């Protein structure tokens, strides 16, 4: 009986450890991918598609999606 309890405990610990390791590895992957170009690394020409009034209005409409 004690042996069964011990194995259940070991199994729970193993699952907990596995979850912890997999979870943290997922986060680190996400951080290392770090989507998108940094603002200061981007060339000025990357922002030149927001020039006419229509383009500015479209940029505003896109940005409204992120108001939260």
């Amino acid at each position, binding site marked *: 009986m004690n042996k069964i309890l011990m194995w259940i405990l070991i199994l729970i610990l193993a699952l907990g450890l596995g979850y912890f390791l997999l979870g943290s590895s997922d986060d680190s992957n996400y951080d290392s991918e770090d989507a*998108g170009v940094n*603002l200061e*690394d981007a060339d*000025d020409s990357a922002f030149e598609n927001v020039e006419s009034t229509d383009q500015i*209005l479209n940029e*505003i409409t896109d940005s409204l999606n*992120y108001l939260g």
Partner: protein
Amino acid sequence: MKKSLYLFNILIILLLVASVIAAGSSTGSRTNTASDPTTNFGTDERVNTARQITGAEKRAARGACEDSDNRRTRIKCRLDYIKDNNEDFEAHYSKAPEACRELEKDGKGRCVAFYKKSQACYDKKRGDKIKCFKRLANFAKANLKDEKEERGLKARDYVILLLYDIQEKIEGAIENDRIDSDAGADAIDKIVEIKEDILNGKTKREVTPKMLQLRTLLKNIKSTIDQESGGESENE
């Protein structure tokens, strides 16, 4: 002979002194011309007319725009000033931008400070200007979709700056006599209304109908410009 030589010397000295004084006073007036609105150096007749108004009269005209309780009337007054004087409307330092006026104390202070900081961006060229807006809105990434922290707040600040940019374009068109101040006032009044909503934390659902109204107003302005310029459409 000796006496006439003496008088001749005195005459020469007087001439030299007079020429030095004349040169000095001539430099002084040139320095003043830049700030003297009554001095006429321009070749453009419109500019010349504007410069005949004194600085005090201009200040009075700008101050009079604050007399009305109606926002659209104040905006139209400022646009008329821009049209008549062919220059930007420089508001009194104590006057907050329209969109900031109805905010509570803290929000108003932040709004005014943000507006003042943004002025540096409007002197820049297009790509650099947008980058400047994003920097001011605390973007870490080049695109809003890639932002991870405080994306909502950054989006709000960025939209405010873009709306100011459209407002600048309208004021430029007024200054260049391409649109009338009534149409300009309608569009800017709508812009201010949207800015107020953004600053008051309104949602996309609440702001979108007003954005559609603004699009229509701007489309009408563009159609008028196109008609008056004989159909030479350009995408400004």
